[in-house]
């Protein structure tokens, strides 16, 4: 089982306590009504899907309940780091 370091609990915790939350650092448009269909599609559905370092959201659902961000390698599944929501991209 993977262990994931929760930046709020400050502990490595079992993967089954967590839920994956998709790619991180995607800001919701402030005024969606000014968006074209293509821009809206881009925001809703188009993700970077890299091979390697991926910035992604996780939630410690069955722990402290918090969303946070992680950098995980999509090839090796190794977590490079995790950090609190709102902190700058690592």
């Amino acid at each position: 089982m993977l262990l994931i370091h929760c930046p709020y609990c400050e502990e490595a915790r079992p993967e089954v306590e967590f839920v994956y939350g998709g790619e991180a650092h995607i800001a919701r448009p402030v005024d969606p009504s000014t968006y074209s269909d293509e821009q809206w599609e881009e925001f809703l559905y188009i993700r970077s899907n890299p091979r390697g370092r991926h910035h992604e959201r996780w939630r410690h659902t069955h722990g402290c309940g918090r969303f946070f961000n992680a950098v995980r390698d999509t090839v090796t599944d190794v977590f490079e780091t995790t950090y609190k929501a709102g902190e700058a991209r690592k």
Partner: protein
Amino acid sequence: MVEIAEVAVSAAELKLGAGPVAGAGVTLSHAGPPARYSLRARDAKVLSDVIGRALPGKIGDQTDGVICLGPDEFYAILPEGTVLPRGEGLAVSVTDVSSRALGLVLEGPAAISVLASGCPLDLASMKVGRATRTVFETVEIVVWRESEERWHVEVWRSFATWLWNAFVAAMPGAHG
């Protein structure tokens, strides 16, 4: 044709046990009916003043039955009948959730291995007095290590019957 074997125990046959169940080195019992509160506040100081109690400062810590579950979330397991002030008008949430959960107690030198049969936490390195939300198999629980060999497990009522039977099944030599 494929024969489908009968399952050993159907969900309808599962019963929540009433009395203590004893196994080798471990007993399972009910913790009794305490007052339970869900407490939320961005500013713990405000909440602490409202309820007139000290709050644990770190996630996973516990002070006199009040557990810090998350950055702005506490769970209180208090003596039956305890009524906390609600702090009306303040940015706090003090909610009586006494009927939401049941408390089960696993006690004895083998209690840790019964809990570990379904809980993926590193229980051996959990310090006495610490408490946390986690899972047992797929059921969410709150585990509080009350002493070296006494573990208090909070579980939502609808999962309690299953959890009780899962514990009994993991207890060496026990029969529900």
